[in-house]
Structure formats: C-alpha cells, structure tokens
C-alpha cells in the first residue's frame, strides 16, 4: 500500500464554501477555506460551536458536498466520485472517531472493529484476525468479546479508535472524541491518537473546542464564523 510521505500534501482544500438554506435565510457555514494538510501531521482544529468545524469534517469525509470550492485527497477530487465511490474512499483512506461512538449493537466489540475490513471485502476470519492484532496493540483486548452497550464511555471511545485504524487508513479524523469522557478517559484517548501519529505516522485531524488540547498537535488552526482565523505550526 502506498504510504503518504511527510512532505506530501494529503488534503488540499481550495476556497471551500458551504451554505445552508433554512427557510428564507442562507447560513454561510464555511466562507472560503484554503487549507493544505500534510501527511503525518497532527492537526488540531479548534473553535466554538457553530464555527464550521463539523461541516468541514463532513466535507472531508465526502458525506456533504461543498457549495463552492474543491477538496482533493492525494490529488483526487473526491466529489467526482459516486456515493459508493466516496464510501470506498472512506473505507480505505479515512478512519473516523465520533464524539458519540456508533455501534452495531448486535455484534461484539471485536466484530465491530473488524467491520471496516469486512465492508472492504475481506473474509470475516481474516478481518477478525487483523482486528485482534489492533486491540492487542492498543491494549484493549479485554474488551473484545463484550457487546458495545456493556462498555463505559471511555472504553467505547478506545474501541472506536481501534475501529478507526483497523483498515490502516492514511488519515484518522476525531470529532470531539473526548466530549463525553471524564478527564482520565479523555487523556487515554488523546494519548492513543498521539501515539498513532508518532509511532504509526498516521495523519490525525482532531476537532475540539477544549483548549486543553491546544498544544498536543503538530499544527493547530482556529476557526470562527466559517473561516480560519489562525494557523500555527509547532516544530
């Protein structure tokens, strides 16, 4: 599999705009975002509620279509793909950690973690073997045979990280992953993401409005009213 090099622009966003029409009113959620995210970056997107962070993530995920502008992932305009094509792109290139983890409640944690691989066409046995490796790497193998509803919020979020990386994606997007966790659980999840960036060279995009995480990434951008108002790179 092709691994993105550190100097490579992984995500290129040009003049991205997104408007929502609510009744007679047009809401400008994104007002012209220009952004290049490099491979192996740990990008923290910070901003208050309603600043457009989630809208930007949804567009990067290919779930929402921009009103204007382009978004390229590794030089490919993802909105030239069909719905299923964008699904395939997500399953191969992106791992997602949500604020409220979604689960297939009838499947065990291990089966849930293996799901992205099964969706990609792997046999269940191979997918489960790979999922087992990941839970061992992340130190959460004791959660494997439980059902998601039997886990605490922090355990669910750690299992969510395992599911996000099981398919060995280029990018891991975490949308407020610590929003519902206590400080200990939150720290564990942040450490996991940090290790993924440092040890496995994954590109991480962390969306948060928690100022405590302001310093953990390699780069931080601050958004307000649909615009990037600050873009700071740390070493």
């Amino acid at each position, binding site marked *: 599999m092709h691994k993105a090099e550190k100097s490579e622009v992984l995500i290129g966003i040009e003049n991205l705009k997104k408007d929502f029409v609510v009744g007679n009113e047009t809401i400008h959620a994104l007002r012209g975002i220009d952004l290049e995210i490099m491979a192996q970056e740990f990008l923290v997107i910070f901003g208050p509620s309603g600043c457009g962070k*989630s809208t930007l993530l949804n567009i990067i995920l290919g*779930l929402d279509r921009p009103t204007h502008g382009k978004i390229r992932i590794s030089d490919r305009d993802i909105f030239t793909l069909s719905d299923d094509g964008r*699904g*395939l792109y997500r399953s191969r290139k992106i791992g*997602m950690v949500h604020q409220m983890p979604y689960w297939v409640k009838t499947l065990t944690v291990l089966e849930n973690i293996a799901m992205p691989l099964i969706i990609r066409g792997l046999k269940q046995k191979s997918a489960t073997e790979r999922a087992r490796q990941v839970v061992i790497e992340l130190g959460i193998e004791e959660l494997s045979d439980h059902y998601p509803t039997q886990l605490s919020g922090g355990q669910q979020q750690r299992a969510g990280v395992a599911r996000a990386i099981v398919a060995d994606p280029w990018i891991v997007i975490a949308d407020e992953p610590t929003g519902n966790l206590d400080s200990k659980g939150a720290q564990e999840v942040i450490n996991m993401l940090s290790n993924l960036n440092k040890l496995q060279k994954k590109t991480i995009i962390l969306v948060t409005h928690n100022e405590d995480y302001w310093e953990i990434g390699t780069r931080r951008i601050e958004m307000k009213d649909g615009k990037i108002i600050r873009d700071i790179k740390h070493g």
Partner: protein
Amino acid sequence: MDRGFLLKFAGKNLSRHRLRTTLTVSAMVIGVSAIVFLVAFAFGIERLVSQEITGGNAFELVDIGTGNSQIIKLNDESVAKIRSLGNVKQVEVISNLAAKIKTEGSTSEPIDVSFFGTTAEYMNWSGLQIYKGKGFEPTSPNASSADLGNVVVNTALLSKLGITDPASAVGKTLSAQIIIPKEIYGNGEAKALEENILVITGVVKDEAAPNVYINYKNLVAENIKVYSQAKASVSSRTAIDTTRKEIENLGFKTEYVGDTLAQVEQIFGFFKIILGGFGLIALIVASLGMFNTLTISLLERTKEVALLKILGMKRRDILKVFLSESLIMGFLGGVMGIVFGIILSTITNYVLNNMAIKSGGDPTNVFYFPGWFMATVFVFSVLTALLTGLYPAYRATRVNALDVLRYE
C-alpha cells in the same frame, strides 16, 4: 461482502428481537401451512376422483364401441384390424350378458345381474381392482357350459345376496342362469344357458349395481361371436388422437377418458385456486406483518445504517443486509410452514380415516403433496418474503448518514 458474515449478521439482527421475529415467522408459517393444507386437500380429492374414473393408466387407453350401428360388428376380425394399427399395443374385449344369480342351494328369488365376459387386463384398465380373493384362474379350453369356472363379483352383488363380509364370499358358489343377448350370440337370437355353478374367487369394490365378471375365454364354447366393447392400449398419450381417428375410420365409435379427466382437472383447478386463495390471504397478512417488522427494524437501526455508510458500505451491500433478514424469515416460514402443513394434514387424515373406519369405510389419503407443488410453495414463500423486504431494504439504502450525524 462475505456471505457467511452477511447471514450471521442478519441472523443476529433478527435474534435481537426474538419475540417479534418469532411472531413474524409464525405468521408466515400459518400462511404457508394454510396453503399447503388446503391445496393438498384439493390435490388429494382430485386424485381420488381421477382414480375413481380412470383406475390407473387410462390416459393411454381408448374405449371402442359400435354405437347403435347394426352393421358394424366388434368381432375377432375387427379386433384383429384394430390390433394391427401402428400405435396400438394391445386390445382387450368385454361382452355384456345378463344372468339370474342366487347362492347355490338358496330358495330365494334369483337376482338380475349384468354378466360380463372379459379379461383380467380389461378389468384392471377399468379400475376394477381385486379387493378380496384373487382374479381369474386359467380354465380349461374345453370347459363345458356346466363348468364355466370362476367368477369375480362386485360388492353390490354381495349386498344383494346378504353377504356382509366380502372376504367370506371368496369360495362361495353361485347358481347362475346366463342369458346371451341376440346381438352377441352368433345365431342372431338370444340364448339362455343351462344353470351353471360358479365359484367366487375374487371381489371388486363397486357399490353401483350387481355385476359378475368371468374370463371371456370361458364363453368361447358358447359360440359368442361379437363383443360389446373393447379397450385399446396406445403406445403413448400423444398418439391418442391419431389412433382414435384410425379406429373411427374403421366405423367404430371411440371415447377417451382423458376428455372427462380434462373436465375434472378444470373443475379441481378452480377448486385449488379458491382454496389456495384462502391460504394466500393468510400469507398476504403475514407478509404485511413482516413488512411492518422490517420497517420498524429499519427505523430502530437508522444510526447503525448511517454508521455502515460512513464506514464505506455500498448501497448494494446495505440492501443485501436487509434482504438477508427477509430471506431468512421467508426460508424459515417456508420450511416450517410446509412441515406444519404436512403434520396438520396427516393429523386430519388420521382423524378422518378413523371416522371412516368406524362408519364401515376404508382408510384412504385425502391429502396429496406433489413434489413440484411443495417446491413451488417454498419458492413462493421465499419470494414473497424477498418482495416484502424490498421496500424497507431500499429505504435503508437511502438513509442519509449526514442527517443522522447532524441530528445527533
């Protein structure tokens, strides 16, 4: 997507709400078993009626007679001509005589009966199966008129003679005065034979009118020149029309039981549609229940479907997940419905037979399950389930993951 996983996944989703799934499948079972029970009953009755009419392989038999013709005669010469036709395999004959019968030594008045000289094959083709005892015994070619030999009688005659147990009739002797009508007797005049003593060797079940059957070879000595009727066995069902025309060209009238059976099949076809319709109503109600179950299941799992889409599952695979669930319910409903239908039919048949035996009747199968019908019911139940699941599955593919994320 891994098919094994797909089925396991669908099974787990169904087992999440066991009671709901059980009730939905139960409704399918009731619908399918109703169809099996009712239509198998129609098939069973049709088969009984057909057997009553045909008595066996009648679809390859043509009945031959002279109608009311005084010129055309069904004799050895014309039988030989029919036998020589290309598609005719075998010809068997019957002569209709009359007789006055009483049990030997009885002082009561003799009974007027139809007395048939025929062959074992003709009787078999006519559906006259030996019920008690055995069929014709070979008799001496030089049998005298006083020793006409063995006869087979029907149960109607036994009733007239006051014999209630057909088995006890075998071996009994009858005193018979046989009358050969002028149409059959070679000299053109009716002839009454001397009183004969006949031994009952077999009994056939037929309550219509008192009949006695004798091997027609025994009548040769009585100068019988003409037969009343004949049956020709034809090489195949497709050759029936041609053969009938050939026989009719010889001046004879023909009848084919297939004509009657076609009418019977038409009537029972209608009967089956009505009964199957009742079962179908139950199945439609069941599929509405399944539709409801699948729709509710989708509404409950909207977040799951959104997750699968975010993870990259194709619409086609989401469709498969939901269709697999309806497929499993249809499969279970079909198999269990068929099994339940057969069990219900067997129990009903047992009860009916018990009632029949108590009333002096004979046990029989009033249900009949042709293999093609059972296969059709199974395929139909699976297809119905698939069709029912199509719309909820399609709706699942249209779930907008983004709307779910925004709502959350």
